Each structure stands twice: as C-alpha cells, then as structure tokens.
C-alpha cells in the first residue's frame, strides 16, 4: 500500500508541476485531471472554570485535511493527507497518538478502475449496503469520524439493473487498522432496469440482499466468543406514482462485546418507511425496531469508534442552536420508534395572500424494549416495546415570505428527553438526571436590506423543566438566545450571537455565551474567523452526534475546493 501511496503522490506532484488551471482542477490534455480540497480548523483554548473549559497546554490545537483526486478516463486515484496538531478537543485524542504518534499521515488512499460491467478498487473505500443497517462506511471529519475499510472492493454489473458488490479488508482505526478482518457482499436488483416491460411506466421496484462478517480471534480467558460474526439483511423498495414503500430487515448472530454487556443474544432490526408526495404536499411515516444491533470491527471497541453499521435516530434533526442541547441518539442495544412528517405548501393567491406559505409538522416517539433477563448472558423479548419512553418530540414550523423584502420562519418544539439513557448517565432502572421536558420557540426573520445585502435575526427561547429531585448538569434550566447575521453577497458574513442560561438553578451559572464570527467567501474559498465562549453539549453534524467540550477562545477555519 505504501507503493500505491507513493505512486499516487508522484502522479499528483508531476502533473501539478506542468499543469494549467482551467475553471476547476488542474488539467493537462491526455494526462488527466487533479481536483481536490483543503480544510483546516484552528482553535485557541483558554481555561474557563465557569463552563468547565479545561486548560490546554498547547494553547492552540488544529485539524487539517487535504484531499487529492486524480482522474484519467476510467482510472482514478486519490488520497487524503491528515494532520492533527494536536487533535481539537472533542476529537478522539488517539488521532494524535496512534500510528507513528505524530498525528500526521495519509490514512486514506485508493486507486479505482471502472469498466461498464466491472469496477475494482484497491485501498480505502466508503460503501453503504441498503439503508446501512449492516454496513455503512463514511467520513464525517468535523466529528473526527472515518470508518473506511482498507482492502479490495469489486463490483460486477453483469446485466442492466443488477449490481453485485464484494469486499475484504480491515477498517481504519485512527492511524492504524482495526483488529478484525471484514468481509461482505451485496446484491442489488433494480426491476425497472432489468426488463422494461415488467413494470408499468410509473412503477419502480428494487430488492437487495447483504451480508457482512467479521473475523476476530477469541483470546478471552473465560468466555467462548464467536470468532466469525455475520450480519445479513434483506430489503425492498416499491414506488408507484406519488406513493413509496421501503423496508429492510437485518439479523446479526450473537456477538458478546463491550457495548452489549456481553450478551449472547442474537440481534435484529426492522425498518419500514411509507411516503406519499405530490406537488405541494408530502407525508411520510416510519417505524423502526432495533434489538442488540451494535456491530463493530473490534468487539472490544466502545464509544464512537469502529462502527460497521449505521442505525440513525428516527427523529427530526433540529439545528436551532438551543434545542441542540437535547438531541436524540439511537440506542443500538434496543429501542422502538415511530416518526411521522407532513409538509404542505399553500400556494400564492389563496386566502393567505400573495406569497407561498409552507407548514411542516413532525412527531417522533422512541420507547424502550420490553425484555427480561433469563441468565447472565441472555434475555427474552416480552412484547414489541415497553411503556418506558426514551424520547418524544412534537414540532411545527411555518415559513412565509412577505414580498421580496422579508421572509419569516417560526417554529415550536416540545420534547421529552431521558437524559440518563440518551447520555448514558445511569443504568436503565436508575433515575439520576431523569426526564427533561423542553419547550422551544424561535422566530427567524430575514430582511433584504439592499441590493445583495441582508440581515437575518433569530430570537430563540427554551423553557426546561427537570424532574423533581433530579441531579442537574452544568447547563440546566431555561435559555434565551439572540442572533444577528449581516451578509453582503457574495463574500461577507458577519454574525454575532449570545446564548444566555438565565434559568440555571445555580445563580453563578446564569451566564452568557457570546460568539462573533466573520466569514469571507470567494468562489470556492471560505475563510472564517471568530471568538466565542462555546457551551459544552452535543454537536450534531451530518446525521450523527457527539459530545463536544466547552471552550473559550479564538478560532480560524479555511476551506477550499479546486
């Protein structure tokens, strides 16, 4: 693999030396094109005892990523340089200590050759089988997450509509590779593409089968652990006009590990989604049940690493700042959830006036499973789910334009959040922090103040009720927030906001969290600098959430795509 790495670098460097710049990327006729991107995030840290921000000996920490992709016809190769000096707080510190221990390396590099009926990739690859319940390999660098597999992947498309994928390799673990060997295969059949006359013109259907397996030697002195652990799934998709139905069932053989309390139960998961959508109205309803489906490339891994599959939360992903204090996180050991969603657009010229009004309503309910332990290593399911609720969210959002000069978004969210379970603060039968009831309201207004100029304001409020007698964490109680953002198209953004924990039970912690940032954008370059006191909490980006520590200091970010 070192050879591949050097070859890719050599190609990259030699081409860039003689390249001319066209719109995007660098290209020499008949040699190929190189495209890429850069991202660097630098944060200064100051100790702040009020918010529990620690003293950082380095004062400044940084994460840097540079991607390069070389393409010539059917061949492409790419790599990613990563540097953590040292990893930003909240990013796993093993990025700084694993491998050679310098925090610098090229942990991602690949070469791919694609023909009409065949594709081969050597090196690192990302992949998803079905909805991801048995395999999802992806990268979310802002969260310090990359679970690519290093190895070989083959795709075979024998006839139109049929795709077979197979792989074998080891998963990335910071600057090392994971202990387990991963193998997998997937069959996807698109009935529409397979034969044109099988389905009516407005009907689509797809079926798929996946299997993924891990080998990891059993070195446990006491337990007999399965060395080969397989998970498989079957899925189907059916679309007819405005109606869609999709479902997947997954099963995993017993896999006692660090995250399931050494349970010898097998695992399973089922997911069904139905939706109806036509111009101006859309609705969807989803049901999901997960039982013991945590799947990792190393059975000893815990926390946010070495995941092989992806079990997303069946809840709306809120991005209003205050309510991100209480996001739901899937409980892979067991949960049952239902979510419904309706979006309606009331067109121009009705009783609501000359502009469109958009309304969305969403609700989600997540419950515990109803299980009874029958031995030290096994449990049984008594019914579909238990009355015990982990999370409930009901929310509504209205968006309305008033001519060209003003756009308003108003939203209300009411949620119940079991802090003990979701944040792993207590065992399931214990109450420490209890259930939090949060009511959130926001009014966002976007004013066009002149040609290319706009002012955006957000007024947020969150009322929080804790269970009587419950323990309280640092950021308890009621909050308010004001945000002002002035933008000058296409290049400048000036943002200030302040979060104020005015209802904290401890008067000394009724504090402000002020932030100010300036961003400059020129084409595909973005530079952002700022100062802020950032509250600790859970940061959700791109579908997953991780805890971030509180911090206080200056930050600088640069991103560029070429």
């Amino acid at each position: 693999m070192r050879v591949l790495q050097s070859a890719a670098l050599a190609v990259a460097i030699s081409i860039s030396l003689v390249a001319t710049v066209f719109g995007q990327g660098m290209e020499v006729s008949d040699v190929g094109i190189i495209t890429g991107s850069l991202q660097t995030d630098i944060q200064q840290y100051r100790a702040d005892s009020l918010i529990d921000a620690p003293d950082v000996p380095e004062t400044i920490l940084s994460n840097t990523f540079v991607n390069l992709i070389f393409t010539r016809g059917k061949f492409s190769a790419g790599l990613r340089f990563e540097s953590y000096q040292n990893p930003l707080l909240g990013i796993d510190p093993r990025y700084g200590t694993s491998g050679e221990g310098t925090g610098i390396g090229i942990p991602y590099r690949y070469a791919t050759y694609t023909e009409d009926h065949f594709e081969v990739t050597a090196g690192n690859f990302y992949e998803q089988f079905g909805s991801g319940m048995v395999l999802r390999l992806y990268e979310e660098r802002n969260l310090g997450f990359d679970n690519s597999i290093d190895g070989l992947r083959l795709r075979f498309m024998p006839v139109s509509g049929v795709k077979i994928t197979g792989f074998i390799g080891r998963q990335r673990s910071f600057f090392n590779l994971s202990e387990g060997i991963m193998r997998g295969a997937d069959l996807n059949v698109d009935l529409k593409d397979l034969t044109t006359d099988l389905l009516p013109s407005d009907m689509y259907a797809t079926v798929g089968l996946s299997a993924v397996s891990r080998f990891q030697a059993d070195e446990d002195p006491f337990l007999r652990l399965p060395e080969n652990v397989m998970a498989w799934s079957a899925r189907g998709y059916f679309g007819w006009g405005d109606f869609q139905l999709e479902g997947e069932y997954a099963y995993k053989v017993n896999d006692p590990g660090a995250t399931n309390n050494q349970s010898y139960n097998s695992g399973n998961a089922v997911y069904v989604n139905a939706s109806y959508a036509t111009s101006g109205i859309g609705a969807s309803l989803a049901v999901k049940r997960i039982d013991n489906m945590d799947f990792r490339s190393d059975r000893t891994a815990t926390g946010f690493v070495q995941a092989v599959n992806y079990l997303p939360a069946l809840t709306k992903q809120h991005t209003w700042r205050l309510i991100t204090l209480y996001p739901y996180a899937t409980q892979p050991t067991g949960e049952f959830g239902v979510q419904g969603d309706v979006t309606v657009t009331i067109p121009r010229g009705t009783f609501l006036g000359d502009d469109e009004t958009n309304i969305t309503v969403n609700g989600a309910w997540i419950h515990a499973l109803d299980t009874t332990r029958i031995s030290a290593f096994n449990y049984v399911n008594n019914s579909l789910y238990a009355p015990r609720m982990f999370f409930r969210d009901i929310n509504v959002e209205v968006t309305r334009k008033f001519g060209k000069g003003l756009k308003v978004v108003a939203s209300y969210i009411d949620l119940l959040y079991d802090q003990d379970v979701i944040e792993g603060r207590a065992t399931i039968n214990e109450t420490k922090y209890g259930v939090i009831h949060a009511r959130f309201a926001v009014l966002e207004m976007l004013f066009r103040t002149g040609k290319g100029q706009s002012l955006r304001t957000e007024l947020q409020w969150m009322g929080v009720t804790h269970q009587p007698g419950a323990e309280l964490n640092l950021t308890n109680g009621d909050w308010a927030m004001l945000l002002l953002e002035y933008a000058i198209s296409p290049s400048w953004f000036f943002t200030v906001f302040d979060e104020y924990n005015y209802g904290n039970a401890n008067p000394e912690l009724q504090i402000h969290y002020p932030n100010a940032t300036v961003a400059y954008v020129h084409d595909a370059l973005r530079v952002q600098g700022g100062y802020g006191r950032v509250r600790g909490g859970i940061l959700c980006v791109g579908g997953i959430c991780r805890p971030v520590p509180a911090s206080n200091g200056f930050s600088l970010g640069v991103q560029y795509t070429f």
Partner: protein
Amino acid sequence: MIAQDQAVPDNATIPNVKVKTLDGAVVETATLGTTQKPVVISFWATWCKPCLVELQTYHDLYQDWKDELGVEIVAVSIDDSRNARKVPAFAKGRAWEFMVLLDENQDFKRAMNVNNVPHTFIVQNGRVVWSHSAFAPGDEDDIEAELRKLVTGVE
C-alpha cells in the same frame, strides 16, 4: 428533464458516480450538464438552513431561468439514511419543480471535493465552469449573471 442518453464529451471532467432520483431510478452523474446548456448543481441537506434559503430562492426563480435561459437546476441531497427517505416528501411538499437527487452515502459529494453544504457548481459541456461555497441572499443575482454570460457568450 436531464437527457440521460446524452453522450458525455471526451474532455468531460465531471466524476461518474451513481445517485438516485426521488423515484428510485439510478442516475450516472457524468451525464449531468453534458451540453452547451448550463446546469446548476447544488449540494444540500434537509437539516442545512442556508441550503433551504438557497433552494427556496431557486424555487422562486426556476421558471424564469428555464424559460429565458434554458437552464436546469439539480439539487443533490447529501442526507444519509436518517433523512433520505423523507426527502421526496420534503421536496415535493415544497412544490420544488427542479430535479432532486439523493447522494445517500455522499459519494458524489466526495468526488466533487465538497467540504460542506451548501456548495453550488455550474456545469457546461461536462465541465465545472463556476463553483461557490455558502449562500447569501443576493448570490442568485451573481449566478444569474454567470448563467447569462454562459448562455449568450456576452459579459
């Protein structure tokens, strides 16, 4: 909407990965924007607020751009399996008439070197001719000027 049978020009540089339409049909990304007619490709996600400001703006302007300039818009959702199933209801419920594609494991996003959403490209003859990260109200005027330049060949 997008001519799928369109031959990809020899010197095209748009990477070819597979994404899906809201109906579940597979689209090869190299077939987007292969002709003289510019295509706006905008990467977005249901949870990304500036993306929604951008796409609602396009929603208001799309008919004019299409009639006057012959321009297509393709909104590529990078929502993962948490939200991807909700995208058809999300997009149609907002009465968006431009094409929406699903890039569920972000293969197209990676191939196009997109760091964060929103990120917008203009593609012509199979090549990226303009690229912009972030969206501020008023950016649509810049994009329109750029499109006009590309269509008429006049600054």
